[in-house]
C-alpha cells in the first residue's frame, strides 16, 4: 500500500470513525468511474478490498515457499507416470 494511499485511508478513518471505510469506498467508486477504470461497485465489498496489498500481505519467504510448492506439484504432474 502506497504511503499516499495509507494517508488517505487514515484520513477517512479519522473523519468517519469506527474504521468503516464505506465512505472512502463510495468516494473511490466515483473517482474510478471518472477515470474510466472499472472497480467493484459495491462499497460494502470494496472497503474490504482496498485494505490489502498482496505485495505486502506475506513476506517474500512465504511467497517463495508457495512458489516452490506450486513448482513441485507441477513437476510431479509432468513426471508422475500414473
Amino acid at each position: 500500500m502506497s504511503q499516499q494511499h495509507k494517508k488517505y485511508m487514515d484520513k477517512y478513518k479519522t473523519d468517519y470513525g469506527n474504521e468503516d471505510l464505506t465512505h472512502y469506498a463510495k468516494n473511490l467508486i466515483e473517482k474510478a468511474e471518472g477515470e474510466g477504470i472499472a472497480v467493484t461497485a459495491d462499497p460494502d465489498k470494496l472497503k474490504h478490498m482496498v485494505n490489502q496489498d498482496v505485495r505486502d500481505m506475506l513476506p517474500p519467504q512465504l511467497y517463495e515457499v508457495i512458489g516452490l510448492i506450486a513448482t513441485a506439484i507441477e513437476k510431479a504432474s509432468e513426471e508422475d507416470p500414473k
Partner: protein
Amino acid sequence: MKISQMLSALTSVATTKSQKTETLQTESHATEAKNTSQVQHKIDQLLTKYSVEDQPSARENINQFMARAKGSETDKLATVEMTLSKGITPTTSNLMDVHAALNESAYTSEQIDALTVKSEGDVISKETTTEVKKVIANLKLPEALKEVLSALVDKGYTLKDALTAVVSAVGGQGGNTSQMLKSLSQNIDVVMSKLEVVVNALSQGESVKLEPLRVQLLLLLIENGQTLEDAIGTEQHEAINKADNIIGSSQVAGEGMSSSKTSNLQTADSVLGDALDLNDGSKEALRTTDKEALQVIPHSSVDEAMPSGDESLEEVTSLDDTANDQSPLSDFIEESVTAILSQLEAQMVSLSETFELKQFLVTESTEKTIEMKTNFTAFKDDVASMLASPEEKSAESLKQTVSEAIEAIDKMISKQEVTLYASMKTERDLLVLSSELREASNLLEQGKTNEAIAIVSKGYHMVKALQYDPDKQKIMLFMTQKGEEANQILTQQGTGRQQKIVDMLNSLQDQQGQHHARDVVETLRFLGHNHENEVASYIENKDKSQEQAQLQTNIKEILLKMMKDETEQRTVTSSEKSLMNLSGQQMMNDSQQNGQRRLYYFNYPIVDAEELNEMKIYVSGNQHKSQMDWQNTELYFGMSLKKQGDTGIKVKVTGGQMTIKILNDTPESLKTLFESYATQLEAIGFKDVRIESEQYQKTPPVGVVNEDVKGQAVTDKTTNEGSLDYKV
C-alpha cells in the same frame, strides 16, 4: 477440498433420506424442523460470538444467504463463520462471494471461457476491440502507428497480427510499381464506400478530415498484402507528386476551391487517371456515384464545410450544376486520394526511417536497463548505509535499522519494478539477506547483541556485493508481453482457452521452471487480487504514468467490464461466478483483522498435466512488525490433482524450523520430489527442513476453526486465538 467438510464433523447436521411412507415423511419433516432450529441456534451463537447480535440486518442477510446459497448447511455455516471472523460486513452479497471463494473452483473451463470475450465469426467483438485499443494506447509507439494499429484492430485484427502487418508494410522492400494502385482499382467499391464517409460528412456540415481516409487506405494496403514500397512505385510516385503539386495546398478539409484550382484539378484528374490506372468501368462507376452523392449534398452544407468565401461557394455550385465527365466531386475524390497517398508516403517513409520494432525494443530495453541499474544502486546505497558500522549503534537503534532494512529488502523483492527484471540470483541474494537480517533481529530481541552485530556486518558486505544484472530478454519479453497477455486473454485464438492462463503461468518462472516469490506476487496481481488496492493508489497518486497499463491488463478489470455488460443484458454467466470467487478471496484478505493471528486465503492457479488447476491456500500466523511472521507460520495447500488425486500439503514453521507433510494416498513420489527442495528452502533461511508424508484421509482440513466437541457450538476457538487445525 471444501472448507465445509472440515465443519461436517462438528456440526453434525443429520441428513434426511427420502422416505416412501407417510410415517417416514412425517419423521423427515420433524427432522428438518429440528435441523432448521439447530441451524438458527448456530447462527445465534455465531452472531453472539462475533458481537453482531445487535445488528438485525446481519441476521436477515445471513438467513437470506442460507436460503439462496448452494451447498450443505454445514458449508454455509462455515462461510458465515469465516465472514464474521474476518470482520467482513455480512451482507448477503458478501456472504455469497465468500461462499464461492471457499467452495467453488476459481478456474473452471466455463470460467476461463467467460474470460474470453465472445466473438462472432472472425470478427472480434466491440468489447475486445476496446480493450485491445486501450493496450495499444499504452504502448510506447509513435502516435501515427498507434492510430494505424487501432484501426486494424477495429477491422478485426489481433494486436499481434496488426503489428506484424504494419511492420511488414513499413519494412518491406518491393519492386512492383503498380500493385497497390491496381489493388485500389480492384477495390474501387471499397474505396468508394470509404469516400462516401467523406461525402456524408460534407452533407452533415462537418469538415472533411484526411486522417480517417489515410488510415483506411493504409488498411487497404495492408489487407492486400502490399508493402509501401511495392505500392508506390517510381512512376506513380512521380505522378502523385505532380498531382499533389498541382493541387498544392488545397487541403480537402476546410478549404474552398478557387477557379484556378478547378482548372488545376482538371489537369490533376487527367494525371491521376493515368496514375491510378483505373479501368473505364471503375471510373464510370466512380463518377456515377459522385453525381448521385452530389445530389444529396445541400449547398449550405458545402458552404459550411468549405468556408473559404463566396467565390468558393459559387464555384462549387457552378460545378455541381454542370456535373459532367469532369465531375468536381470526382476531382475532389481523386484529389483526396492523391493527397492521402502523398501524406501516407511521407509518413510511412518517415516511419520506416525512424521506427523498427526490433530497434524500438532494443532502445527501450537499454533505457530500461539503465533506469533499473540506477534504481538498484540507490537501493543498495540506502540499505548499506542502514547496516554500516553496527558496532557503533546502540542495541535499540540497531534493532530499528535492521527492521527498516528488512522492510526495504522485502519491498524490493515483492514490489519494485527492479526485481521484476532481476536475475534469479539477484532475487535469491535479496531473499537470503532478508532472512539473515531477521536472524539478527531475533538475536537482538534475545539480548545477544554481539552475535547480532556479526550478522549485520556480514549483511552489510552482502549488500555491497549485490550485483544487479538485469536480464535484457526478460525486459523485452515483459515489455511486449504486457500488451500481449491481455490480448491473449481477450481474443479467441482457436487454441484451448485455458492455455492462455497456462501460458501466463509458464512465463512467470525461471529457466528451470521454478516459480519464485515475485512470480507468485505477479500471478496474483495478474489475476486481479490487487486490482482495487492499486486503483486506489493510482487515483490518489499524482504520478499516474506507472500503473495504468497494469490496471487495465488484469483479469479482474476484464471481469468487471464484462459483468457490466452482462448486467445491462440481464444475463448471469460464469464470469459472475469468477468475479464472486475472486471478490470473496479479496475480502477475506482484508488486513483489518482482529488480534495478532492472521489468516489469509486464496486460490492459486497451477499447471497440472498441462491443464489449468488450482490450489486452495490457507496461510495462518502471527504478525511480526508489519507482516506475517514467516518463522512461525502454517500453510495448507489443498488440491485435487489429475494424476495424484486428492492431495494436501501441510507446512508448519516453528522458530524457523520447517516441516512439510504430504497428504496423499501414494505420497512417495511427491515426498522424494519435495526432499530435493529441502536444501533450497534452507538456503533461504528455513531450518531443519523435514519432509513427512501420510495417507490422505477424506476428512480434510481445514481450520478456520478448531474442531470441537461434536454437537456443540460451531466454534469455540477462532483464528484470532488459535492456529489452523488441520484435522486429518
